[in-house]
C-alpha cells in the first residue's frame, strides 16, 4: 500500500445515501451564452451522476480550452480546466497514476479534434478507462466563430468568408479508426437519450467516446436542427437499439437495408419490405460500426444516434498495475539500498 492508498484508505467509496443532481452543482456561476446547448449537457450529466453510485470525491472532470471546456467548473467534483487540446494526455497521466478515480474528459470539436486530435486517438488506442464527452458544435465558440474540423465543406465563418475548403472529420469514424472500445452519439436537445448514453459510457470499461451534437446559438445556430427539432427529427434520426432492426420515421414506417455494404432507406409501408429485411443493430460488430459511422456522409440517410459500438479490450492502466504487482511479487518491494549497491561495485579501504 503506497502513501496515497494509505492516505485515502478510510475515504468512503460509495455514497451513504443517493446523491441528487443538485449535489453535482458547483458554486460557480455558469457563464455560457443564454440558450447554449452546453446547459443541457451539464444538466444531463448532473442527473446521471447520482445513478453511478460513486463518491463525488472520486470523480474528476478534465477539459482543455473552449466554451465546452468550461464544463468542469460547474461540476461539484474534482475539476481540471487545462490547456488547449491536452485533456486526454492529462487524464491519461492521472488515470495511470490513480486507477481508483473515475476520470472524464470534456472537450469540443476544436479542442478534441483539432489541436488535441493526436492525444485523443492515442488515448482511444491505449484504451484507458476514461470517458470522453465531445461537445460538437461544428464551430470554435470561445474564439468567436471560426470553422472547426467538423464544420461542413464550404462553411462561411470569420476565418472563411469565401467558405471553407476543408473536408470535415467524422468524429465517430476517427474514434473507430483509432479502435476506441466504446463509440456513441447523442443530442443536446434529447435529455432522456443523452442520459441513457452517458450512463452507458460511464459504465463501459475502457475509453468511451461520446459525440454530442451541441447547438452554438451564437455562432452556429441550428447546425443540428434537422436531427434535434421535433418536426424533422423522427424522419432523420435512427435511435439505435442493440439487437433491434433499424426502423425510423414519425410512423416508424421506414427502415435501413444494406445493398452490398451500403445502407439504403426503404419504406415499410409499400409492402415491398418488412421488418425482417432490415439491418439489425449489433453493438459488438466492428464492421457494422464503420457502416453506421459513415452514414452521416450521406445526406439522404438518417443519422444513427445511440451506442454505435461497444467492446472489451485490456485496459492500459490495469495492465500497467499488473506488471507492477507481478514484479513486486517476483522481486519484492524495491529496496533502495539494494538498488544502489547492485551489480559491479568495489571498496576502497
Amino acid at each position, binding site marked *: 500500500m503506497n502513501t496515497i492508498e494509505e492516505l*485515502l484508505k478510510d475515504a468512503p467509496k460509495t455514497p451513504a445515501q443517493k446523491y441528487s443532481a443538485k449535489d453535482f452543482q458547483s458554486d460557480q456561476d455558469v457563464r455560457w451564452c443564454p440558450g447554449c446547448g452546453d446547459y443541457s449537457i451539464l444538466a444531463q450529466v448532473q442527473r446521471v451522476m447520482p445513478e453511478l453510485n460513486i463518491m463525488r*470525491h472520486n470523480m474528476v472532470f478534465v477539459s482543455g480550452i473552449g466554451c465546452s471546456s468550461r464544463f468542469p467548473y460547474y461540476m461539484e467534483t474534482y475539476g481540471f480546466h487545462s*490547456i488547449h487540446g491536452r485533456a486526454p*494526455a492529462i487524464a491519461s*497521466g492521472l488515470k495511470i*497514476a490513480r486507477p481508483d478515480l473515475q476520470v472524464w474528459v470534456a472537450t469540443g470539436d476544436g479542442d478534441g479534434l483539432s489541436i488535441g486530435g493526436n492525444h485523443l486517438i492515442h488515448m482511444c488506442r491505449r484504451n484507458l478507462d476514461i470517458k470522453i464527452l465531445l461537445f460538437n458544435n461544428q464551430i470554435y465558440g470561445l474564439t468567436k466563430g471560426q470553422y472547426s474540423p467538423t464544420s461542413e465543406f464550404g462553411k462561411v465563418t470569420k476565418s472563411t468568408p469565401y467558405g471553407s475548403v476543408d473536408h470535415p472529420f467524422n468524429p465517430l469514424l476517427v474514434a473507430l479508426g483509432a479502435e476506441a472500445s466504446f463509440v456513441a452519439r447523442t443530442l443536446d436537445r434529447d435529455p432522456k437519450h443523452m442520459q441513457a448514453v452517458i450512463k452507458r459510457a460511464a459504465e463501459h470499461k475502457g475509453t468511451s467516446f461520446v459525440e454530442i451534437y451541441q447547438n452554438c446559438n451564437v455562432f452556429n445556430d441550428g447546425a443540428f436542427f434537422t436531427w434535434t427539432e421535433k418536426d424533422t427529427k423522427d424522419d432523420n434520426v435512427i435511435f439505435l437499439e442493440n439487437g433491434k432492426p433499424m426502423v425510423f420515421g414519425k410512423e416508424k414506417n421506414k427502415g435501413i437495408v444494406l445493398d452490398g455494404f451500403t445502407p439504403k432507406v426503404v419504406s415499410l409501408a409499400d409492402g415491398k419490405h418488412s421488418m425482417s429485411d432490415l439491418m439489425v443493430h449489433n453493438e459488438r460488430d466492428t464492421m457494422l460500426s464503420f457502416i453506421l459511422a459513415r452514414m452521416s456522409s450521406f445526406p439522404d440517410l438518417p443519422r444513427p444516434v445511440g451506442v454505435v459500438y461497444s467492446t472489451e479490450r485490456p485496459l492500459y492502466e490495469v495492465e500497467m498495475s499488473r506488471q507492477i504487482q507481478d514484479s513486486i511479487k517476483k522481486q519484492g518491494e524495491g529496496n533502495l539500498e539494494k538498488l544502489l549497491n547492485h551489480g559491479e561495485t568495489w571498496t576502497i579501504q
Partner: protein
Amino acid sequence: MAKDLKNLDDVTIRFAGDSGDGMQLTGMQFTSTTALLGNDLSTLPDYPAEIRAPAGTLFGVSGFQIHFGSTEINTPGDTCDVLVAMNPAALKVNLRSLRDGGIIIANRDGFNDKNLKLANYEKNPLEDDSLEKYQLHIVDITKLTHNTLESLGLSNKLVDRCKNFFALGMMYWMYTRPIEPTVKWIQDKFKKTPEIIEANTRVLKAGYAFGETTEIFASRYEVKPASLKPGRYRSITGNEAVAWGLIAASVKSGLDLFLGSYPITPASDILHELSKYKNFRVKTFQAEDEIAGITSAIGASYGGSIGVTTTSGPGMALKGEAMGLGVMLELPLVIVDVQRGGPSTGLPTKTEQADLLQAVYGRNSEAPIPVVAAITPADCFFAAFEAVRIAIKYMTPVILLSDGYLANGAEPWLIPDVNSLPDISPTFRTDPNGFYPYSRDEKTLSRPWAIPGTPGLEHRIGGLEKEHITGNVSYDPENHEFMVKMRQAKVDRIAEDIPLATVDGDTVGDLLVVGWGGTYGSIRTAVEAKRREGKSVSHLHLKYLNPFQKNLGEILYNFKQVLVPEINLGQLSKILRSKYLIPAVSLTKVQGLPFKSSEIENKIDELLSKA
C-alpha cells in the same frame, strides 16, 4: 625478457574502431578493472550519430576514452596518451586527440585498401612517415586473433568479433592490470555460449601474453591507486544517476514516481532505466509526443505522484506551454532536459549547454521555474533528488539541466548511505474545514496539495488566472498583479532553503571562474593547475541557476575579474551581468565537445596577464 616499469600519475587511453568493433565494451572493461585497482577515473564514450554506419567509414567510428590516475581525476582527459586504432577511419578521426609523442597501437589488418579508401587516405599512414611524432606500434591484431582461435573452428565472423579482447589484453599488460575481472565478466556474460567464453578468454590472454613476450613494447607502466575516500564505489553514468536519484526521492517521500516521456537522444536512457524498476512502483508512460509526456506527468502530480518528464532541447521547446500551466497550477513537476547540440535537430549525439536561457525564460508571460543543474555524472543523482525535494516542498515545476556529456560520461561514485539522504515529507491536505486551493503556507508560500479522492476537497483548478486564496478564475487587475508577484516570490524564496555557494580556493582574489553544470571537471582541473602555479584564481560552480544562491553577489564582488566558461555563446554570463551588473567575461566553446582544461587555463593566463 624483463621490461622496465615506469610509474605514472595519470594516463588517458582512447579505444577507437568501427561501431561493430566493440570499442565501448572494451573501454568499459578496462574501466571496471581500473576502478577495482582504486584509481580515480573519468570516462567518455563517443558514438557515431548513425545507428550502424557502414564499416570502415569516418562517420562510423566509435570511440571510448578513459582517464585514470593516482591523483584526483575530474575529466576524461584533454588529450590522450594512447590511441588504439582498429582501422584507418579510427586513426584519422582520433589522431587530433593524441598528444605529441603519444602511443598509437594500430591493427595492421584493419588498414587494408578498402578501409584506407573509405577513410580517404591516399597512402597507408602506417607505411609513410606521417606518424613520426608518435610512438607507433603496428600489431596484426586480427591475424593474431585468428591464429589464437584456429583450433576452435568458429566462423570468421565470430572470430573477428573477438579481436577487441586482444587489444584489451595488450592494454592490461601495458598498464599492469589483472585480466581476471574481465575473465570473470566474460564467464557470466556468455554463460549460454561456452565456446564464446573460451574464445574471448583465449584472445584476452593472448593479447596479454603478446605484450609480455614480444619485443615491440619496450616499457610497461604502473599507475598507483588514488587516495579516494574509503567506502563502497560503483561506476555510474549521468543518465543512470538521474533515474536513481528520482527513485531515491520516490522512496524517501513515499510517493510513486510517474515518468511521462517521449524518447530522444541523449535523454532516452533515463526512460529505459526507469522502466526497469516496476517493483519500486515506478510508472513509465511512453507518450505520443513531448507535450503528452509533460501533460501526463502533470496529471499524475495532480493525482499525488511525483510527475516527471525527461527530454532534450527540441522536446524542451515543445513543453513550454505546459510548463506555464504547471506554474499556474502550482503542482510539483520535474522536467529533465539533457542538453544536446542545436539549434533545431542540430547535433543530436553531441553535448551543449545552450538551453539555460530557454529553461529560465522559454515560456509565455511571467512563468518563473526553479532551475537546478548537475555538475558531474554522479552528481546527477543528488541534483535529481534535490529537484524533487524543491518541487514537492514548493509545489512548483522544477527544471533539471543535464547534458550529453554528463549523461553518457561515467565516474566512480562513493555509494551514499540511504539514511544520509535528506528526507522529503509531502503533506496532503485532508481537512475540508477552511480549505482553499490557493491559500498559502507562510514559510514556503506554497499552496496545499489536495488530491482527487480526498473527501470534501472537491475543487477546480486550471490555466486561467486564479484568485488569491479561493483559486477561482479572476480577471481582476490587482489580483493578477498580486499573483504574478506571488509566483515570483515563491520561487525567489527557495534561495532561503538551499546551501550557500562555496568557492574552491580563496574567497577573495584577482579572478573567479564561474561555471555551471557539466563544465565542472574541466574548470576544476584548470583552476587547480593555475593555483598550483600560485595564481590568484578561484572556482565557483553553480548548481542552482534559478534562484541563485543568496551569497552569490557577495562572492562575485570579491574578485577583480569574473570569467564564465560555457558550452554556449554566453548564457549564464548574460544573466550574471544583468543581475549583478558585473563585467563578466565569457569564454565560449560551441563544438559539441566539453572544454579542454587547457583551453580554460589559457584564458585564465590571458586575463591575469592583462590585469
